[in-house]
């Protein structure tokens, strides 16, 4: 259970001297230690986090202002480059990689006084929906140790629900924040594409990658997004943030139109989940929102489009891991070609190789038009359909996932089945809109996630809706 106070209160207590940052960090490190059987974390950052905490306490003693996250411990998915521990992206090829610089998101959080205490497990290079593709180990679901926490930010989702830290960072390329949030019962926010800098996060698919928080409540998600977001001179795809704080979430449900996505509520959706979502929608309606069913006809193509564009970009982004400058380098290679082949053969896991192969294939001359170009065409169509839908409704709603957390090993022998886990989350990445997963009851004791989406740059409104929904349940 996450029994940390809301983040703003923690920071206030540190800033006022009531609570010591050092004690918060020690507490977080102890919880991480105690929960080690869940394998949420790849590495602890003991020395640096305690140093930073001591420094912050010292600053407080001398009356200096710290910031909105003063002394708040957090965990980052291990694809964020950060000081204090290796950055591996849960891959063998980056084992032992000591980052020479930090991700912009980490820098921004640290500037407000947050303290990174550990790096969370993930599917290697964020390729997956369960953390089973981690080159190291699988993280266990906090609600049922025989089940996966979702992925790829599974370590982050588990960490928040195990209460290791008040918040964790994830990355979402096709649902990798929302799915673990849904499977673990956390709030997981994928912001508008470009709202949070990608600089210093190991790239998966550059046109889809979004960085965001996993928290135990919507208010915390708003605060973390408020700190992380904004234009970054190190990432040309970033956009200006909203001039109103993402902590101002009081939007009111009256007059808001929510479109329930028809394609997400049909066959293939678990009956219990469908009932949960329906209840959630009914509650929103009772509270004053207008509910409409809405159809996005190209949505059934989204997964196919995603599994062309994503591997295409993955195959390109993983080219740099060639064993020549950093990371794993095969020592038994006689020639340059051998060195490339052996380093990548041994350094990459099966899923990374699978995506490199698919991506290389769809970008090859002769196949480019049939696959990559066609996928981009459908992606544009999807964007147009979302834009049209958002002329009719303020928000879209549906489940985050067609199922609750599945058993460890259940899908590992069938990559296609694993890919289907992302069926309801990939569209938001292809279209670039913000999407959030908020807890929405349970099914057989396992958390269910409600997925809400809003037009691009309406992140604050989206958080506002999520907050209103959260308030209905508490």
């Amino acid at each position: 259970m996450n029994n940390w106070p809301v983040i703003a209160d923690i920071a206030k207590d540190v800033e006022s001297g009531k609570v010591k940052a050092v004690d918060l960090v020690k507490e977080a490190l102890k919880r991480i230690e105690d929960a080690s059987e869940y394998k949420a974390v790849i590495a602890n950052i003991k020395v640096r986090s305690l140093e930073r905490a001591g420094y912050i306490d010292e600053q407080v003693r001398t009356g200096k202002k710290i910031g909105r996250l003063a002394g708040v411990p957090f965990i980052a998915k291990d694809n964020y480059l950060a000081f204090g521990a290796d950055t591996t992206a849960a891959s063998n090829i980056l084992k032992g990689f000591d980052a020479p610089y930090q991700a912009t998101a980490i820098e921004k959080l640290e500037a407000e006084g947050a303290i990174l205490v550990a790096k969370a497990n993930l599917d290697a290079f964020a390729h997956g929906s369960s953390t089973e593709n981690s080159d190291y180990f699988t993280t266990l679901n906090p609600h049922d140790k025989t089940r996966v926490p979702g992925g790829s930010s599974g370590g982050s989702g588990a960490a928040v629900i195990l209460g290791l830290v008040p918040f964790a960072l994830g990355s979402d390329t096709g649902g990798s924040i929302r799915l673990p949030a849904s499977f673990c019962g956390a709030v997981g926010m994928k912001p508008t594409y470009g709202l949070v800098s990608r600089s210093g996060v190991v790239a998966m698919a550059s046109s889809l990658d979004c960085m965001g928080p996993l928290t135990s409540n919507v208010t915390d998600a708003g605060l973390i997004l408020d700190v992380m977001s904004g234009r970054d001179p190190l990432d040309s795809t970033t956009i200006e943030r909203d001039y109103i704080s993402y902590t101002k979430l009081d939007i009111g449900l009256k007059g808001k139109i929510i479109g329930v996505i028809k394609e997400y509520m049909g066959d293939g959706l678990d009956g219990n989940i469908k009932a949960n979502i329906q209840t959630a929608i009914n509650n929103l309606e009772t509270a004053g929102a207008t509910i409409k069913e809405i159809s996005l006809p190209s949505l059934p193509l989204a997964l196919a489009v995603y599994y062309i564009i994503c591997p295409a970009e993955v195959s390109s982004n993983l080219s740099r891991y060639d064993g020549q400058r950093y990371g794993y380098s095969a020592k038994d290679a006689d020639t340059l070609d051998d060195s490339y082949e052996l380093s990548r053969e041994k350094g990459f896991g099966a899923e990374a190789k699978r995506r490199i192969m698919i991506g290389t294939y769809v970008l090859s001359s002769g196949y480019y038009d049939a696959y990559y170009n066609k996928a981009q065409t459908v992606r544009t169509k999807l964007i147009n359909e979302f834009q049209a839908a958002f002329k009719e409704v303020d928000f879209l709603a549906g489940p985050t996932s067609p199922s609750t957390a599945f058993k460890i090993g259940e899908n590992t022998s069938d990559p296609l089945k694993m890919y289907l886990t992302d069926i309801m989350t990939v569209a938001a990445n292809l279209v670039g809109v913000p999407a959030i997963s908020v807890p929405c009851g349970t099914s057989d004791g396992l958390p269910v996630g409600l997925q809400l989406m809003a037009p691009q740059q309406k992140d604050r409104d989206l958080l506002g809706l999520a907050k209103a929904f959260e308030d209905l349940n508490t």
Partner: protein
Amino acid sequence: MSSYKATIGIECHVQLKTATKLFAAVSNDARAAEPNTLISHICMGMPGSLPVLNGKVIELATKAAFALGTRPQAFSKFDRKHYFYPDLPKGYQISQFEQPIILGGHINTSVEGKPKRINLTRAHLEEDAGKSTHPEGANYSLVDLNRAGTPLIEIVSEPEMHSAAEAKAYAQELYLLMKYADVSDVDLYHGNMRFDVNVSVSKTEKLGTRTETKNLNSFRSVEKAIDYEIVRQSDLLDKGKEILQETRGWDDTKQKTYSQRSKEDSHDYRYFPDPDLPPIVIDEKFISVIENSMPQLPDELRRQFEKIGLDSSQAETLLYEPEISKFVVEISDSHGNKTAKTIANWVTGEIQHLVVDGKLDWQQVLTNSKSLVKLVSLVDGNLLSSTAAKEVLVDVLTTGSDPQAIAESKNLIQESDESALIMIIEQVISDNQKAAEDVRNGEIKVIGFLVGQVMKASQGKANPTIVQNLIKKLLGV
């Protein structure tokens, strides 16, 4: 062999004149730097590093477009070109494939006085790779990433050249255009311009199989490599053999091209739009600001030189020194064409020789240009002979001192005072009565001898024109 017609197209990588790299805030001047000192996480392709476009490049590409007789594209974008090589840190090069920043354009050249227009296909922006060296006998190679990410614009011509001379003229004019448009430092020695030449030969209208000889970094090697390829390919065809479509290199010591890579080994580069970089959108206002601030281009200077009365070989010599060219044009504005022409004669004659011999450099000429003008006016005003002027030239241009003072100190000022000269002339006539008599009898040529004697007697200080006139007067011819 001579019956084959050669067809040549040229791709040239021009290094853009920026302080920092194309996508990273790291110094671009690798000339004197130790290996791998001008690098950042971006140049190294570290995980999570992202390219951010250097805005200066857009300005330089826009200038390049105008220099090449066209305008930049309002919309262009970057693509990734994939291949593995240790000096390519990301495993792909960021280039422009589908929509380059420049489409079309042309270069006007002149071969043996005949004008020829070479059309351009396109020009695109891309980042340079690092530098690999393979130490002799070692079982390793070395990579220097200082150059990785240096901004280049690759200018691609249509295959419209048919001889090495045409290709050389094209390369030289491209050099001048990039220099005058201030797009590049065009330092050939440091590889600021690298030419790839595509050559094929054929007896018919149908083009033959072409080879591409890469990385030529001098006009001479462009010319030599093309000549070599034309002969090599023609010989092969004469022997009934096939030309292989391949990439070749140029061995400057052996003056030969050699096979590097055949078409079968050619990469599938898997181009696709770089998702890390938004498209380049240039607005019309920016384009017209650059258009209105374009520096003078070579053709405009050629017209000015023609007005001054310089011949084309003088004009071409001057064009390679833009500052000197500017100076000559300024002199024509301030002192008129006659002085400007005299200056140009000096510059392209004696001064050029001194520079080539290492006795002067162009910067000294520019620094002391006022003294040079004064020196020319001393000659024009008959105070100094051309020969004497040459004698003081180096002193004048290295010290910047007053040329008259130098000439006086060396006792070189011409004697133009008639009464002083008449005394010398009378003495020479009485010493050379036979010659004087010949002149009186109409053998005018003999005057030269008498003038020479007077010059000798005056230790070279007499003004020969005045001496000649006085002799004629005294001898009544």
